C-alpha cells in the first residue's frame, strides 16, 4: 500500500505539529527567544487545528498504521485546543522562570504529536509509539523545574510508574499478538474473533492496566495527586487534559472494536473499576487543602464517570464520551489555568494551597468568577458545561439500565459537591489568608488571561446552549471506522 496525497492530507495535522517541533528546535539552536518560540508553537498548533477543516473533507480514511475518522478528528481537536491553552499559559507561567524556557514548548509539541498519533492509531505499534511519544516528553515537562524538589519528585514518580505501566501494556500487546498473530486492530479483531482464550484475555487485562494508569483509574491512581501537585502548572494541565483524552480515546476504540475487550468479564471488571474510581476519587478529595491535588482527585473521579461509556459502549456511548470529554477538557483547562496564572509571578512552588485563595474574589473578581464557574462545572451544576456532560452520563446509564453505575455517579456527585463548594466558598470569604497570592493586575488583557476568560465563556455557553456541540459530536461519532 502506498501513501497517496489524500493520505498526506489526512495526516496534515500530525505533520504540521511535528514540523513545528522541528522548527522550534532549530529556532532554539539559532537563538533563544521566549516570545518568538511561544508564537511559533502557537502558530503551528493553530495551523494544525485549521488543517483539521481540510482533513474533515477526506475523512474517514485509513493508513496501515493510522485511522483518521470522526473520533480521531474529535480527539485531535481537543488535544490541539488543550495544547494551545497550555502554550499560552506556559508563556505566562515561564516568564519569570530562571533558566532556559524554550525547550518546554519543544517537549510540549512532541507530546502533542504523540497524543495525536495515539488517538488515531489503528495498530498496536502506533499505539505504543504514540503513547511513548506522549509520555516521554511529559517526564521532562514535569521535572522541568527540577531545581524545585517537588517538580523533580513528580518527574521521577511519573517516569518510573509510567514505564512500569508501559511494560504492562507492552506485555499485554505481546500476549494478544502471540494469540492472534496480528498487530493491527482490524486484524486483531479477526484473529481473536473465534479463539479468545485465557492468554488473550490476560493480554487485554494487562493493556487495560497500562492504559488505566494513564487515565489514573483506581487502583492505578495513586501517582496522580503527587504528580499534579509537583509538576509545573502547564505540565499538569497537559497531563490532565490532552494526555487523558488521547489515552481515553484509544481505550474507547479498543473496547468498541476488539473482541477481547468486549467479554463479559472485562465488562464486569470495568464496571467495578468505574464504580471504585468515582467513589474513591471523590472521597480522597474530601478534605484536601491543596487545590492541585484536589483537581487531581476530581479528575480521577471524572474519569470514573467517563468509564460508564466504556462499560456501555454502544448506543449513546460514543456521543456521551465525546460530549463529556469536551466539557471536561474545557473545565479542567480553566481550573488549572487559574492555578497556573496565580502561580506564575512567583518562583518556587506553585500556589496551590487553598489558603492562598482565601478571599480572592474581593481582589480579583473576574478571575475568581472563572474559577467558580469551573468548580460549578466540575460539580455538574446547570448553566455550566459540566452539567451537560453529567446529563449525558446519567442518560447513558439510564438508557442502558446500568443502575449501579447511575447510583455511583449520583453518590460520587454528592460527595464531590462537598469539596467543590469548599473551594468556592473559600474564594469568597472576607478574611484574607496569611499568604495570599494574586495574579498580576493586568492578567485579564494578557494572553493567558484571555484564554482563561474565553474558556469560562465557553463553559457557560456550552452549558446554556449545548445544541451545536451535541450536533457536532453526533456528526463525528457517525463517521467512526470500526
Amino acid at each position, binding site marked *: 500500500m502506498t501513501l497517496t496525497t489524500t493520505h498526506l492530507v489526512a495526516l496534515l495535522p500530525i505533520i504540521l505539529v511535528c514540523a513545528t517541533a522541528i522548527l522550534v528546535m532549530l529556532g532554539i539552536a539559532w537563538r533563544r527567544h521566549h516570545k518568538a518560540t511561544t508564537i511559533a508553537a502557537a502558530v503551528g498548533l493553530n495551523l494544525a487545528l485549521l488543517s483539521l477543516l481540510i482533513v474533515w473533507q477526506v475523512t474517514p480514511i485509513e493508513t496501515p498504521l493510522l485511522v483518521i475518522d470522526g473520533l480521531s478528528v474529535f480527539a485531535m481537536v481537543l488535544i490541539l485546543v488543550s495544547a494551545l491553552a497550555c502554550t499560552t499559559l506556559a508563556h505566562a507561567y515561564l516568564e519569570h522562570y530562571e533558566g532556559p524556557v524554550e525547550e518546554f514548548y519543544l517537549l510540549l509539541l512532541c507530546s502533542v504529536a504523540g497524543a495525536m498519533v495515539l488517538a488515531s492509531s489503528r495498530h498496536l505499534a502506533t499505539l505504543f509509539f504514540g503513547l511513548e511519544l506522549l509520555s516521554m516528553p511529559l517526564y521532562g515537562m514535569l521535572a522541568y523545574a527540577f531545581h524545585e524538589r517537588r517538580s523533580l519528585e513528580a518527574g*521521577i514518580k511519573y517516569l518510573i510508574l509510567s514505564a512500569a505501566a508501559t511494560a504492562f501494556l507492552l506485555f499485554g500487546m505481546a500476549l494478544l499478538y502471540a494469540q492472534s498473530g496480528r498487530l493491527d486492530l482490524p486484524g486483531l479483531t479477526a484473529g481473536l474473533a473465534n479463539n479468545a482464550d485465557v492468554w488473550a484475555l490476560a493480554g487485554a*487485562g*494487562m493493556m487495560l*492496566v497500562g492504559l*488505566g494508569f494513564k487515565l489514573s483509574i483506581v*487502583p492505578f491512581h*495513586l501517582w496522580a495527586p503527587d504528580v499534579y501537585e509537583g509538576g509545573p502548572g502547564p505540565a499538569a494541565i497537559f497531563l490532565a487534559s490532552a494526555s487523558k483524552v488521547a489515552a481515553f480515546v484509544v481505550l474507547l476504540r479498543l473496547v468498541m472494536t476488539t473482541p477481547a475487550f468486549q467479554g463479559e468479564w472485562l465488562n464486569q471488571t470495568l464496571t467495578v473499576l468505574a464504580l471504585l474510581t468515582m467513589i474513591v476519587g471523590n472521597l480522597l478529595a474530601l478534605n484536601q487543602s491543596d487545590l492541585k491535588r484536589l483537581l487531581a482527585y476530581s479528575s480521577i473521579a471524572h474519569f470514573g464517570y467517563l468509564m460508564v461509556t466504556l462499560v456501555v459502549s454502544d448506543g449513546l456511548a460514543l456521543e456521551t464520551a465525546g460530549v463529556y470529554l469536551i466539557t471536561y477538557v474545557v473545565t479542567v483547562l480553566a481550573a488549572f489555568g487559574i492555578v497556573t496564572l496565580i502561580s506564575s509571578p512567583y518562583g518556587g512552588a506553585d500556589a496551590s494551597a487553598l489558603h492562598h485563595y482565601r478571599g480572592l474574589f474581593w481582589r480579583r473578581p473576574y478571575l475568581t468568577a472563572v474559577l467558580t464557574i469551573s468548580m460549578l462545572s466540575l460539580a455538574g451544576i446547570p448553566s455550566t458545561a459540566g452539567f451537560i456532560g453529567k446529563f449525558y452520563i446519567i442518560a447513558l446509564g439510564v438508557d442502558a439500565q446500568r443502575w449501579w453505575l447511575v447510583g455511583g455517579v449520583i453518590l460520587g456527585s454528592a460527595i464531590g459537591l462537598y469539596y467543590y463548594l469548599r473551594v468556592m466558598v473559600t474564594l469568597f470569604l472576607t478574611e484574607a489568608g496569611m499568604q495570599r497570592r494574586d495574579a498580576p493586575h493586568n492578567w485579564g488583557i494578557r494572553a493567558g488571561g484571555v484564554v482563561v476568560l474565553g474558556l469560562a465563556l465557553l463553559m457557560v455557553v456550552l452549558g446554556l446552549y449545548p445544541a451545536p456541540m451535541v450536533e457536532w459530536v453526533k456528526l463525528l461519532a457517525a463517521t467512526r471506522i470500526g
Partner: protein
Amino acid sequence: MGLSMSLLLPLTFLLPLAGTLILSLSKGRLGERASAVVGVTSMGLSAIVTVLIAWQYIAEPHVYGVTLWRWISVEDFQPSIGLVLDGLSLTMLGIITGVGFLIHLFAAWYMQGEKGITRFYAYMNLFVFSMLLLVLGDNLLLLFFGWEGVGLCSYLLIGYYYEHSENGWAAFKAFVVTRIGDVFLAIGMFLLFFELGTLDIAEILRRAPQMWAEGDPTVELAALLMLGGAVGKSAQLPLHTWLADAMAGPTPVSALIHAATMVTAGVYLIARMNGIFLLAPDILELAGIIGALTLLMAGFAALAQTDIKRVLAYSTMSQIGYMFLALGAGAFDAAVFHLMTHAFFKALLFLSAGAVIISCHHEQDMRRLGGLWKRLPLAYAGFIVGGSALAALPLVSAGFYSKDEILWQELVTDHGGLLIAGMIGAFLTSLYTVRLIILTFHGQPKSDNARNAEAGRGLVHAVPLIVLALLSTFLGAWITPPLENVLPAPAEGEEFWHLVLEIVAAGVAIAGIAVGAWLYLRRRGWLAKHTSSGWGAWLWTFWHHAWGIDELYDRVLVKPYRGLVRILRSDIIDGACGLLAKLAWLLHQGLSRTQTGKLRFYAMSMVAGATLILLALALVP
C-alpha cells in the same frame, strides 16, 4: 324601623373591631384616658345597636339572615361570612354587649394606673368582636372563627400581666387545653360536612333528621365530637383545669370572659346544634353526666380555695355544670336561661371581687382579708346580691328561678341521678358562697391591705355594680329569652310536683346558708383544727388542688411530652443521616493513608491492582 337589619347586625361586631383597630394601630400614641374612651365607646355603641336590634326583633320576631360575602367557594364547600339572628343569638347578643359594656365601663376604673391600657382595650374589643361572631355566625366555620378568636383573646388577656412568667404559662395552659376541645369540634365539623355536604347550621339541622335515625353511630360520633369542643371551652370535666389558672388575668377579664360569656360558649354550641344532639340521646345523656360530675367536683373544690377569684372560678365551673345538667335533660331553654342569669350574677360577683381587690391593694387571699363590709359597702352589697343569686336564695334572686327550672326539668324527664347531684350541688353552692362572703367581709381585717382598704369612687365604678346587682335579683329573672322558635319546647309536668321541688330546693339552699353561717361564724376554730390535721387536712389539700386532676395531667401528659421533646431535641433522624457523612469522612481518612508519597508503595498498589484484575479473569471463565 329606619335602619335595616343588614346594617345593624354587622355593626354590632364591626364597632368593637373598629375599636381594636384604632387602638392597635395607634402605636401607643393614645393615652390612658383616650384608650379607655375608645374601648368603652365602641362597646357602648355596640350595645345601643343591640338594643335597636332587639327592638326590631320584638316587633317582628322572625329569623333574620345577613350574608356579607362568600368566604370560600370551592365546589360545594361554600361557607359565607353570614350572620343569622334568632331568639338564641339575640339572647347571647344581649348578654355579650350588655354585660360586656358594663364590664368595659368598670374596667376603666379597675385598670386605671396600669400600663398598657391601650393593649387591654384592644384585646377586650377584639374579644367582643370574636364572641359576637361566634354567636351570630350562620355556619359552623364562622362559628369556629369566633370560637378560636375568643380563645386567642382569652389567652392574651390572661397573660396580660406578662412580666410574671406564671401568668404567661397560665394563659398558655388555657389556650392549649381549650384547643384540645377545639380540635374535637373541628373534626366534628369535618365529619358533618362530609356527611351532609354543608356547613350552614340551619341547613345541617334540616338535613340531619333526613339523613340519620335517632341513635345512628355517625350522628352520635358527630355529637360526641362537638361535645368535646363544648367541654373544652366551658371548662367541664375533663378539660376544666385551665379555668382556675385563668384567674391570673385582670378581674374584669375574668368577669367578661371567664364567667359571663366565653365559657358559656359550649352551652351555646350545644343549644345551637340541638337538632344533632337530639338525634344522639346517649351523648346528650353524657353531657348531663359530665355536668353533674363537674358541678360536684367544682363545688367541693370551691370550698377549699383561699383565693377569692379561684372560689369564683370553681363556682363558674359548677354553674356551667348546671347548664350541662340541663342540656343532658334536653332542657335547652333552661340551660340558656341559667346562662343568662349566671352571666348577670357572676359578672356582679367578679366585679365586686375586683372592687375588693383594688381597694385592698391587689390582695386576693381571703385569709388576709376580712371585716371589709363597713369599708366597702358597695362591694359588700354586690357580694350579698350576687351571692344570694349564686346560692339561689328563693324568690328574691334571679339564680333561684333559673336553677329551679333546671331541677324541675330533670325531674320531669326522669333524670333522678342528675337531680340528686343538682341538689347536692345546690347545698355546696350555698356553703361556699357563705364561706366566701364571711371570710372576706366579716370578722377582723387580717392584713394591712385589708385594714387600709379604700372604697372605689365614681360612677364608672358604681354604675356597673348597681345595674348588675339589679339584674341579679328577681328583676333579671323577668327577662325571658325569646327561645320558643329556636329550641325545642321544655317538657311539661304536674304543677304540684313543681311546687314541691321548689320548696325542697329552697330548703336545701337555705340549709346550706345556715350551715355555712353556723360553721364560719360560730365554729371557726373547730373548723380550722379539723382542716389542719389528719385526713381533714388531706381532704382540704385534695379539694384545694381540685381533686388532684392537674397533678394527674401533669404526670400523665405534660411530663411525658416534655420528656419526648427533650429526647428529640437534637433531631435524632438528622443525626442518623449525619452518620453517612461520618462514614464518608472515615473512608476519606482511610483512603488518604494510602497516599503515602512513597514510590514503591505506589508500584505495589499498581501490581496488586493488576493481579486482582488478572485473578478476576481467572475466576470468571
